[in-house]
């Protein structure tokens, strides 16, 4: 891979070089960790001690502070992956590959967390761990897509080649996710038109909204932090593999 070393390098191009990426994001990791920790401390304090219990659901409503941000991230991470996929295909940005690969397990984890907290919440409120409600179902399908993408990453030997193929699949998935969501909503209203449970009703008192808002940011920054750290690990892993191959060739020759 040749690197263009003209003096006018934009941050974009600078990030394109793995070594530069490591150097630049090195400064970011600790501030991100501290910011995330602070947001979580604040958010959890509000969530546990400074927000009222629901008059119907009692203390179980506090699951919402984990559930809603995870559910948001399960979709946001897919968006990040789709943008990275565009970066791979359109701009051939080397870090976009890495970003796409790093995001998939994170997205799967957040989606699984959204499902898990959703069913924990569903047990006391619906009386069952799993309800075939529109949201839960489309989140489950999203989890399957994430897991499929992770399986695809693992199946390829050559990660550079994998990146472009998976980028195409990710984009096709991105076109499909709204269709899946629409179809699942259509399906769930068809089968149970009466009681559709809504987690975030339009009217929510500020005492619930403020902690939710903080947790929202805390989770988003958690994702960003994990994404940056995972990308750094992946860059290093690739470097190690390259060095190992080189060493193997030199001893072999």
């Amino acid at each position, binding site marked *: 891979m040749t690197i263009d070393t003209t003096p006018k390098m934009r941050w974009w191009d600078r990030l394109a070089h793995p070594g530069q990426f490591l150097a630049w994001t090195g400064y970011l990791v600790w501030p991100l960790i501290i910011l995330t920790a602070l947001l979580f401390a604040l958010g959890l304090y509000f969530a546990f001690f400074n927000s009222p219990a629901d008059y119907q659901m009692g203390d179980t409503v506090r699951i919402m502070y984990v559930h809603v941000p995870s559910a948001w991230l399960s979709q946001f991470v897919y968006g990040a992956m789709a943008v990275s996929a565009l970066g791979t295909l359109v701009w051939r940005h080397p870090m976009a590959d890495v970003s796409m690969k790093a995001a998939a397990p994170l997205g799967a984890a957040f989606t699984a967390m959204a499902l898990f907290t959703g069913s924990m919440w569903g047990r006391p409120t619906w009386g069952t761990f799993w309800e075939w409600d529109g949201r839960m179902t489309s989140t489950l399908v*999203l989890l399957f897509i994430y897991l*499929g993408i992770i*399986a*695809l990453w693992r199946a390829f030997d050559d990660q550079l080649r*994998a990146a472009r193929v998976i980028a195409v699949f990710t984009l096709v998935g991105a076109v499909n996710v709204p269709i899946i969501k629409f179809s*699942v909503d*259509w399906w769930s209203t068809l089968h149970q038109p009466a009681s559709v449970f809504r987690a975030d009703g339009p009217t929510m008192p500020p005492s619930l909204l403020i902690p939710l808002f903080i947790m929202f940011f805390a989770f988003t920054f958690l994702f960003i932090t994990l994404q940056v750290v995972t990308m750094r690990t992946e860059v290093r892993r690739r470097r190690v593999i390259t060095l190992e191959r080189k060493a193997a060739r030199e001893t072999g020759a």
Partner: protein
Amino acid sequence: MNGFSGILRRELRLALAGGGDMLTLVLFFVITGALVPFAVGPDRELLARIAPGIVWIAAFLAMLMGLDRLLRPDREDGTLALYRLADLPLSAILAAKVIVHWLTSALPLILAAPFLALILGMDPQTFWRTLLSLLLGTPALAAFGTFGAAVTVAIRRGGLLAPILIAPLCVPVLIFGVGAISPLGGPDQAGAALLLLAALSLMACALSPFAAAFAIDWGEE
């Protein structure tokens, strides 16, 4: 268009010469459907109620089963590399593949569907609706399937991967496919489902050859 029809002829000839493949697929479809009564019990009423779902699931699985034979043999004998150097664009070749995939793995199932409908005790009206929804929905499955095969063709042991990848994307096809049959939401909803199913098929057939061509071009060594 000489080359396009040439591919259709070649693939059909191969499918008919190796007639075993198509027969296996039909058998898989019929056996899957026929296994359900053993699992849920010979309750005629229950079976008749879930028959459209059974037929659709069986068709869905059977079409996913056939994916590995769609592009992998072409890759293994070097034909796929030559396709990329052909006069015809790769996307056109893959469009032909979608058609062939539908003709060899969906059409036989649709032809075998009456047998399954009979043993599951479907009433005639439901049966005709099932046939219609299969006819409208299976092109989308063929298109998604071709895309899945293209994504996994470069992987040496990608046999089971394509079905795993494609199944979640095909959820809408299944939903609208069965929704177009079952009288749950009333005739209005069933009609809407039928239209949505047709829209899905059209869109998938139009776009998937291009997506599949991208995946092959960028994924091949």
